[in-house]
């Protein structure tokens, strides 16, 4: 299997909106002088990895990190303001994720908004304590508000850039 065949397979990783560029890169490989072809093909593989894998993994990874941070903040907070801090972290992280991926704002709002309830439920089950962790699901509302505020900011930013 030669480099161009490997690259052809790697290009299948690309999302639909980048496939045309992948085809362009591949089409030009045959015109690149032999001395530079390996570097050209290696660049193509990096392009396929970056646009096809990194771009797909980046958002789920960011969401997982945000959930982890929120759960940690919720557990370690002991001060009187702990709940406010948790709420602030929830709003801020939901807004950032909503800004990064407006299409997935609903997911960020739901996941982050239900994190505290999930954490409370987990520890309540471990200690056998009774309580109402399910009532914490009300935090889905600020989660969604934060995420859609981030999405709206991204939308306005894009509009503004088009006008400039």
């Amino acid at each position, binding site marked *: 299997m030669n480099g161009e065949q490997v690259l052809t397979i790697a290009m299948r990783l690309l999302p639909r*909106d*980048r496939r*045309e*560029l*992948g*085809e*362009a*890169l591949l*089409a*030009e490989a*045959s*015109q*690149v002088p032999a001395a530079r072809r390996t*570097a*050209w093909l*290696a*660049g*193509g*593989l*990096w*392009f396929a990895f*970056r*646009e096809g894998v990194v771009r797909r993994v980046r958002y789920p990874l960011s969401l997982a990190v945000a959930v982890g941070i929120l759960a940690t903040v919720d557990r370690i907070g002991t001060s009187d303001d702990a709940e406010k801090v948790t709420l602030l972290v929830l709003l801020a992280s939901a807004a950032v994720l909503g800004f990064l991926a407006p299409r997935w704002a609903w997911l960020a709002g739901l996941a982050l908004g239900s994190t505290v309830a999930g954490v409370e439920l987990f520890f309540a089950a471990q200690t056998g304590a009774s309580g109402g962790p399910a009532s914490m699901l009300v935090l889905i509302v600020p989660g969604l508000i934060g995420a859609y505020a981030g999405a709206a900011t991204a939308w306005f930013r894009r509009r503004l*850039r*088009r006008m400039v």
Partner: protein
Amino acid sequence: MPARPDSSPQTRAVLAALLAQPGKWRYGYDIAQDTGIASGTLYPILGRLADRELLETQWESDPPEGRPRRHLYRLTARGAARAVELREERAAAPVVRKRTALEGT
């Protein structure tokens, strides 16, 4: 981290290369040779510039026999304006540095 996605040195180089022959359709390897940018860096830049409508793209309509069709790129009016803006920013930058140096003495 660059202040704007189109202000990295590589993106500036791509915009400058395209601005050198505005209106002319260029292909990827041609731009890569002109700028010295590797294919793995060049194509994401071309993609982002096209996403922001600074660049228009099309496939070559009538390639010579035996050669695959090339994907072609050229600046849009907005892209050309942005490229000029970046060129002027760059031209102004050394003056600012000189003044700062003089003020420091």
